[in-house]
């Protein structure tokens, strides 16, 4: 075997190893990105579920106002959800103009990736519909 042949063989091996490493890295990145996208969508789903149904203000006649939150309903809220077959935990924050943000639920763990989403909403407070911001931080349980 000549030196040229050895070099060619070496380069071919490097090429194959690089190919395997690049494919493995792309696969790992794809899985990470998919998990992040799933977490992002789960956070959106939780926000919608809470704003439209679970925290929605219900008046004396039983009419439900979607996108209008009733802070009193936060007391009975469970901070765990199953979305798309995966379990998530979340923390809720609520604030309106001139007030500090109030948080409800467990704090997000430091060793887990979380997704935060803050949306606009109305708040039924002091017999008025007030502008407010409603936030959810969700993570894989």
């Amino acid at each position: 075997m000549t030196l040229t042949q050895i070099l060619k063989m070496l380069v071919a091996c490097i090429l194959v190893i690089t190919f395997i490493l690049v494919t493995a890295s792309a696969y790992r990145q794809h899985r990470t990105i998919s998990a992040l996208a799933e977490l992002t969508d789960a956070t959106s789903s939780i926000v919608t579920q809470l704003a439209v149904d679970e925290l929605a203000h219900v008046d004396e006649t039983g009419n439900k106002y979607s996108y209008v939150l009733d802070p009193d309903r936060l007391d009975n809220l469970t901070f765990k959800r199953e979305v798309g077959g995966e379990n998530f935990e979340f923390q809720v924050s609520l604030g309106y103009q001139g007030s500090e943000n109030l948080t409800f639920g467990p704090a997000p763990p430091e060793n887990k990736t979380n997704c935060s989403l803050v949306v606009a909403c109305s708040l039924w407070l002091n017999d008025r519909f007030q502008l407010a911001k409603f936030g959810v931080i969700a993570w894989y349980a």
Partner: protein
Amino acid sequence: MKQDGVADILAMAFMFVLLILGAVLMHAYSLRPLRAATDRQLELKCGHIYKALETAWVEPYTVSFLRAAAENIVLEHPTVPGPYLRSAMENALGYLSPPDYEISATLTQDGGILIFNENVRPPSKQFVRSGTVSITGAGGENVVVQVEVMLFSFS
């Protein structure tokens, strides 16, 4: 022999270039689901902004921001006076706007137009949520005002 050697080296160099290009494309393409999920969140934010303006009342009145704006187009004597509404609306849009984003609201009805926060820079992306507000006109007729709320991204 020398020509064969050069051909082999060229083939290998070409394979390396292809490999690197493929890797760059694979990594760039794999970010698409995350970008799409982020866009869906922004679409959701825009919808929530519309609903918040539709339901929240202008302080100290008992009429919502969008209804008050629609009244300003249709009625001669609206519940909320024009200059006060503009100030309250722009304050509300500033409060609701996420960092690096701007919100604009446009109401139109038969040539009448009312724009809040119109001096926005050219955005890199925009999300629109449209709807209508019905107002009973001075003659008792039902007037429909078109509403468009836009969320502009600059990142």
